[in-house]
């Protein structure tokens, strides 16, 4: 892209903020951190207010900040939730609210930078931990997934490498990505509507990832 990718960081641990800022600076091309702080005010006040992509910690000194996430989503922000929480329910709840994606802090640099870039372009991004949550999702509101899609999700969760998944299943790494991205679009197309979800679906149709018939 001609214009660089910008991001706002919200995390109540200074070391995490510093670390993520360093990762973004080291990325190639670098991602510019426009604002960073320990609470959500940095995302609502200038200069952060005009930056669409927000990386936020889910636990800002207390219970999961679902309400804050919801407000950001309502204002059309692309939120990458970056959390300590490993459980499936939290990841799926964030997705249901309209978060762009969900990463655990055990997932490192490459995943976070990729997720931020994908968010800036409204292209799906599913981290291994989120794929694991989707793969074992047993809720009634789960979208209909093909057995092959579930296989790909779970293998991605297990090995964290699309190349390995491709070798294991005898398909190309590109096909692995397509499977995973299509699942993400199916999720975006279920549950309560959100403008971020609509953008994701629209972009996917535009890119030929899914057709209207698939949905």
């Amino acid at each position: 892209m001609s214009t660089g990718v910008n991001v706002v960081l919200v995390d109540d641990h200074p070391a995490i903020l510093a670390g993520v800022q360093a990762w973004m600076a080291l990325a190639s091309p670098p991602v510019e951190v426009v604002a960073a702080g320990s609470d959500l005010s940095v995302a609502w006040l200038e200069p952060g207010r005009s930056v669409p992509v927000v990386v936020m910690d889910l636990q800002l000194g207390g219970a999961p900040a679902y309400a804050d996430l919801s407000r950001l989503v309502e204002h059309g922000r692309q939120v990458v939730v970056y959390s300590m929480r490993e459980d499936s329910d939290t990841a799926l709840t964030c997705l249901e609210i309209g978060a762009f994606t969900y990463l655990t802090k055990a997932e490192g640099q490459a995943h976070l930078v990729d997720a931020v870039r994908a968010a800036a372009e409204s292209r799906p991004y599913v981290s291994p931990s989120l794929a694991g949550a989707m793969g074992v999702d047993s809720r009634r509101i789960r979208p209909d997934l093909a057995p092959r899609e579930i296989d790909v999700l779970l293998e991605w969760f297990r090995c964290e490498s699309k190349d390995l998944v491709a070798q294991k299943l005898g398909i190309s790494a590109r096909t692995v990505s397509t499977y995973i991205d299509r699942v993400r679009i199916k999720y975006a197309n279920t549950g309560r509507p959100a403008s971020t979800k609509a953008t994701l679906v629209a972009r996917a149709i535009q890119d030929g990832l899914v057709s209207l018939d698939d949905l």
Partner: protein
Amino acid sequence: MTDPLGTAGPTAPIPRPTVIADEFLRGLRIAAMSVTSVVLIFIHLPVALQFTDAYRWPAADLGALVAMLAVVAVAAVFVALDRPWSWLRWVLLAVVFVACVGGTVAVEPEYLIDTPHWSWEMFGWFAVLLLLDLRLRWFFGALLGQYAVTAALILGQDAAHAPMLVEFGVTGLLAGAWQSTVALFSIALRRSAEVALRTAVEEEQLRTFERVAEQLHRDRQARYADLAVTTAPLLAGLASGQLNPADSGVQRACSVEASRMRRLFAESDDVADPLEHEIHACVDVAERRGTAVQMSTRGSLPALPLPVRRALTEPVIAALAGARSAARVTVTGQTSAALEQGVGMQDSVTLSVVTDGAQDGAVEVPEGEQILPGAGGGIGRAGGRVRVSRLRSGDRLWVEVTWQAQPAQPIRTVRAMDDRTNRQRTVRV
């Protein structure tokens, strides 16, 4: 193995301390009830109705009869329902006692020790019936108390004289002897019931101890057998100097054995999720060796029997032993019980481990599939298929072990040659 008794077969329930005595007492109570009713209705009732003239106030005679019949009726209901007397016994006994005293006071003095004065002999039978389940002293106390009151009333009469008292003593002794015999008999029965109960409890405890000891012994032998095959030769080799501790292969073998031992110890822990607990034990050994292990679990895990858990963790132990610096271990499970949708899906659990350093050493994780029986020998109760797959890519080794519940054997048909007709036919497998 965490529940030695549970696996040793169904344990006979230890009888409640009072059950045996209750059974005896119930029979005895019915017997006493019958005797009391028969004596009252067939012997004393006709007498009471015939000799109302022998009373100064005939109402006292009839009153005593009615009161005792009422007591018999109430007692019969209690006996029929098998309900304990509780406080009611004292009320009934008091009613009978007052009826007796009334009869004794009202009867003409010349009939004091004669057929028309029937009521005082009746008291003893009621005492047997109502005090049967108490200690013997209550029965004798009540009986002698009533005799004393009757004797006092006789002495108070002007017509009292020595022969009458002798006659009272003899009659009392005769009636009382019958009643005392029944009372004593009940005590004897209760004692033997207690002895029988004590013996039963002691025998049961002895059997329990034996079963626990047997199970512990079997567990120990099984554990030793597990270790004897793999750990003992390794230790012997190290001790004799045949194996070199500096050799990386020997180090890996030691690491595998350490994990197996840790898993063995973890198996006997009583935890909510034994599989995860045992995986943690295996991961722990790898982490001690300096491998950074990242562990993640997703989904719900079904309860699996020990052989299945071992089959799942064994390849993971081998793979972890070969890791150079990092490993990712994941557990994903699916239980049909947890599913809100996807009815008909099978329970399954997958353990996956990705390690680096695959080309350094020759870690052997054999691929393959085995079918493990569930508890009770059948395929049900968490028996099923365990499949191991392995993928090596660059320096990474990816091992996946999947357990899948065996569905009820589907009827499959295949085309096969019929030897006799030399034609293909469809065969049910």
